[in-house]
């Protein structure tokens, strides 16, 4: 019986092995649902459960036919059909020769993009591309964090991006200008996992009609999205709650939707945990500035030199909406809107010492406690058409600012102050460029600004009883501006060899108003100015050398009308203002630049009133010498830049000299804690010499990046103090270093530090004390298993003018756990529970030491979820 069983088993084994050696031939046709043959698709036979275990494969023929011959030691096989334009289809059949037609569904297939390793930086033509994954840290939640690590790129504390020491011109996402200058919203909120490369477009002329007609010196940045992000709506929400000596909250929602023809970025943020929301709303657009200023404001403590979240006792909400659509092939329509509601509570104690001409010192000791409420709203609608022949841009912007503040000050006695500032602004920009020939064109730029800034300040008690009769002081004021700036360039009107000459004509008109009421002192002024003339832009390019000379001949007319006194003052001036740029591109890696300019500043209405204005609770201003002055400014800069993207080394030196010849000097007259602004005619001059060295180097080794900057400046300047002109000079030295390093896969390290020293001395007088400050910030991140990250950071500050302990140390720690779409971050700020921070600063002949109340130790849990 046992022998029989073995014989049967052997028989089966033999049959099986004979079957395995038999060649199977399967043929047939791959057809679509309507019965037509499908060509050039993969047909392969595999094991049923293991598709990677293939026995034979072929491509279908032009009629969809296929034939597969194979030997397989199995009973059943799987016939698989795959291709880019069909849904993968599998058919299980017996392992025997047969004819088999297979019907497939014709549907385009998407392949997941995968990138394991790519060059960190590469350049093609004028574009340098940084591969984001090579610079990204595991815990980065915004592309701005990656931008700070790119060699050659610097990001200021305010969020402004610079390349080769110059601020960038435009910030694009997939070639579209979504943010219109407010790119901090994008850099702070776009997930770095959505971006594949960051491109620096060197000397990028964004106006197609000006290509090869008008050079552009500044670079632009373009974010290239990963293809999986395009056409996908993303919604990321963060919910945070915690405790310091009160309940904390920190929430945000970020929505992005990037399509080929439109882009959307919308955000909401709110917190009382010290995160500053205003910085990311700032505009870096060249034209986006207010033409009026607040002349009467509440006095608040200046910002100390530590991270704002330590001294920012806030309640803030912000919301932004940004959308851009492609219109036709070359058009764009963009809408941007932003709103901020902010409450800032500050308290400090400060001592301000000013060195007076007689060697004595004026000392003001004040304790401050106040709250500032701000509402800011701004937005724009922009239409742009950008073709090879024509460029049109029409942009309408609005800005609204409302500030209410009140505070109590103790400066020998209790003083209460309260203010309100409103600002309304409408700004229109129209830009037209037309290329009239292969090397000729016309460019027209027009700006219109309408602005109104009513504001008020009330102070009790009256600190100027000899001037103001009432017990309390109440100041109301209003600044108005209506202005237009227009410029018409005839591009390459004259071409002579390598020399191109573009004549230009311009007309600027500005009407400014200032009214104020303080007790019996009233101002009602109108300053009207016209600036018109012609100019010539001459470009000369020969091989590596490029020269650009811009000379204008200006006629300037000023009319100051004092409505109260009915006095009209006119002034006519003719000035010539040249600007010269020389560039020598030594070999595409080394570059030399020289800039020289001569300009004249114009009188401002804020310096022309002849009746008292309360500019702050202890400062009363009047300009006795209210002539329509002008000052002359000469500026020279020599720069050298080195760029080697293969070794990821960027290096530059800037040397500059500014010579200023003002007609009028403004200064202070101190009388105890009160201060009066005075002015006087002068022939004095002011000089500033500066030198800056900057270097940036990236390494493939351990993702190391080192950035360093060193600056020195010397100034020699007049100052008006106690109605006496005195000269003072000083110098300052600064150095910065930043390092990022990933020594192991489980650890990353970053450090940034700065050193600053300055000293001022009065000629024929005393010296101000030498100020020396050092700041060091270091952070470590440990990447543990199960997507857990431990982080720790320490900030150290040193200030030699602080009387007691010059050193100050702050620490924080956090732990983060990521699970699929969720991440949980628990952080502890100010671990050592420091209560106050002492900060000293020296500026000119004034020294200030302040003690700030800072946020105590806090715990905050944030839950972040990618909803879509």
């Amino acid at each position, binding site marked *: 019986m046992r022998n029989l069983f073995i014989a049967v088993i052997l028989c089966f084994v033999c049959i099986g092995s004979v079957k395995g050696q038999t060649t199977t031939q399967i043929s047939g046709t791959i057809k679509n649902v309507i019965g037509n043959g499908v060509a050039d698709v993969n047909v392969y036979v595999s094991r049923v459960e293991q598709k990677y275990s293939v*026995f034979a494969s072929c491509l279908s023929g032009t009629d969809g036919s296929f034939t597969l011959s194979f030997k397989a030691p199995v009973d059943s096989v799987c016939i698989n059909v795959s291709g880019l334009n069909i849904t993968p289809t599998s058919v299980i059949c017996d392992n025997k020769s047969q004819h088999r037609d297979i019907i497939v569904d014709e549907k385009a297939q998407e392949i997941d993009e995968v990138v394991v*390793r790519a060059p960190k930086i590469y350049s093609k033509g004028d574009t340098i591309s940084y591969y984001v994954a090579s610079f990204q840290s595991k815990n980065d939640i915004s592309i701005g964090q990656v931008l700070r690590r790119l060699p050659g790129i610097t990001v200021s504390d305010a969020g402004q991006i610079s390349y080769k020491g110059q601020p960038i011109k435009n910030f694009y996402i997939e070639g579209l200008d979504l943010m219109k200058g407010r790119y901090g919203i994008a850099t702070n909120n776009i997930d770095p996992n959505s971006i594949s490369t960051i491109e620096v477009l060197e000397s990028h002329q964004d106006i197609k009609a000006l290509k090869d007609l008008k050079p552009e010196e500044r670079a632009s940045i373009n974010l290239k999205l990963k293809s999986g992000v395009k056409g996908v709506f993303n919604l990321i929400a963060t919910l945070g709650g915690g405790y310091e000596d009160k309940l904390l909250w920190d929430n945000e929602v970020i929505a992005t939707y990037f399509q080929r023809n439109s882009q959307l970025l919308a955000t909401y943020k709110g917190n009382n945990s010290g995160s500053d929301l205003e910085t990311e709303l700032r505009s870096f657009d060249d034209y986006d500035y207010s033409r009026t200023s607040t002349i009467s404001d509440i006095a608040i403590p200046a910002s100390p030199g530590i991270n704002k979240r330590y001294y920012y006792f806030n309640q803030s909400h912000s919301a932004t909406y940004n959308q851009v659509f492609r219109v036709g092939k070359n058009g764009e329509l963009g809408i941007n809107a932003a709103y901020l509601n902010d409450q800032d509570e500050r308290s400090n104690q400060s001592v301000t010492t000013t060195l007076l001409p007689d060697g004595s010192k004026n000392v003001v000791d004040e304790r401050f406690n106040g709250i500032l409420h701000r509402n800011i709203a701004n937005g724009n609608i922009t239409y742009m058409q950008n073709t090879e022949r024509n460029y049109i841009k029409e942009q309408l912007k609005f800005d609204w600012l409302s500030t209410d503040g009140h505070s109590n000050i103790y400066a020998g006695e209790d003083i209460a102050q309260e203010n309100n500032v409103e600002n309304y602004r409408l700004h229109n920009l129209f830009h037209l460029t037309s290329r009239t020939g292969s090397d000729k064109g016309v460019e027209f730029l027009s700006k219109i600004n309408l602005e109104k800034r009513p504001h008020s300040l009330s102070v009790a008690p009256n600190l100027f009883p000899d001037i103001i009769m009432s017990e309390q002081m109440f100041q109301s004021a209003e600044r108005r501006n209506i202005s237009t700036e227009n410029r018409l360039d005839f591009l390459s009107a004259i071409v002579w060899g390598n020399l191109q000459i573009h004549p230009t004509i311009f007309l600027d008109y500005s009407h400014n108003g200032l009214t104020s009421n303080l007790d019996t002192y009233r101002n009602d002024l109108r300053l009207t100015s016209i600036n018109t003339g012609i100019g010539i832009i001459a470009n000369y390019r020969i091989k590596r050398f490029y020269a650009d000379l811009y000379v204008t001949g200006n006629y300037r007319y000023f009319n100051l009308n004092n409505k109260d006194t009915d006095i009209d003052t006119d002034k006519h001036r003719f000035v010539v203002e040249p600007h010269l740029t020389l560039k020598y591109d030594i070999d*595409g890696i080394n570059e030399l630049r020289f800039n020289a300019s001569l300009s004249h500043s114009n009188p401002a209405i804020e310096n022309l009133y002849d009746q008292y204005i309360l500019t702050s609770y202890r400062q009363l201003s009047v300009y006795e010498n209210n002539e329509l002055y002008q000052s002359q400014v000469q500026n020279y800069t020599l720069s050298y830049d080195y760029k080697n993207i293969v070794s990821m080394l960027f290096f530059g030196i800037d040397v500059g000299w500014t010579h200023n010849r003002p007609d009028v000097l403004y200064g202070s007259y101190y009388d105890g804690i009160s201060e009066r602004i005075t002015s006087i005619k002068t022939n004095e001059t002011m000089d500033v010499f500066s030198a800056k060295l900057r270097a940036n180097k990236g390494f493939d080794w351990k993702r190391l990046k080192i950035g360093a900057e060193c600056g020195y400046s010397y100034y020699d300047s007049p100052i008006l103090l106690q109605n006496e002109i005195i000269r003072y000079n000083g110098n300052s030295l600064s150095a910065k270093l930043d390092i990022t390093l990933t020594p192991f896969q489980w650890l990353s390290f970053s450090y940034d530090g700065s050193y600053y020293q300055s000293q001022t001395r009065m000629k024929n007088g005393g010296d101000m004390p030498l100020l020396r400050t050092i700041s060091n910030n270091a952070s470590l991140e440990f990447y543990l298993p199960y997507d857990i990250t431990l982080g720790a950071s320490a900030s150290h500050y040193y200030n030699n003018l602080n009387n007691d302990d010059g050193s100050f140390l702050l620490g924080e720690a956090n732990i983060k756990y990521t699970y699929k779409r969720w991440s949980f971050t628990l952080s502890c700020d100010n671990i050592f529970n420091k209560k106050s921070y002492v900060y000293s600063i020296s500026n000119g002949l004034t020294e200030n030491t302040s003690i700030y109340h800072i946020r105590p130790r806090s715990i905050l849990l944030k839950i972040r979820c990618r909803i879509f």
Partner: protein
Amino acid sequence: MKQYYLLILATCINLNANAELAPTPQPLGNFETIEASKYEVRYSFRFKKHNTDKEYLEDTRVLQIGDGLVKEYSDIIYHFDSLATENFRKGLPTSSNTNETLPCEIFNYHKRKGIKVKYRLMLNGGVLCYDDRYPSFDWKFSEDAPMEIMGYSCGKATVNFAGREYSVWYTTDIPLPYGPYKFYGLPGLILRVEESNGMYIWEVFSVVKSSAPINIYTYEKEIKCNRQDANKTIGRMMRKPLTFLSSSGTKIMVARSDGSFGAPSNNEQENLYEPIELE
């Protein structure tokens, strides 16, 4: 004839057996677009010029996959060419390429079963343009356990191609029947290729969608020839580069061991050279 002058700073007259001179970067202004690509795949390509070499040289190969056309080229050469394009436009000199690469562009026309090659000779030696034979691969599928590459399970297949044995790993999850160099015909994208002696190793590191145009660039000094003549010319150039460059009109001076400069010796020592295709 335009003369090219070269100064080679070497400590002896004969070039080192491993030394090769990369093609001079050329501007890319003259081109014809054949079609738009659909995918772009990048491979690291590690290779030895001879089996006695210990160190690998490294190139980055780009595979532009279109509709039946696959272009394969060196990203390093393209990088220097694109810099040259921009620099020449500005009238600037451009950086030399000092990397040793596989200096050819291969156009695999799978629909019409043809291959065109543009081979960049050393320095300004010219560009050989020839039609290559369209190979037929007799793949042997392996039962080995799958290898994971970039998160994909990869099956293994082997093949004898042009006198060399290759092991190839491919994934059926990406239904593109293509691979680096001239490899094709597996039921999925080839992610790794390894020659049996370890002389040539291609490994993928990126697969992305792309709509970039697939261009055929026209270079200076293009020489039309057939496959046999091209192989002979490349062989001559690789074995005796200085003699080859002199014969192609390039003026060469070398630094002798005594510090003086002069024309290279007439008896240039022959370098070891093994072509990638032995047959």
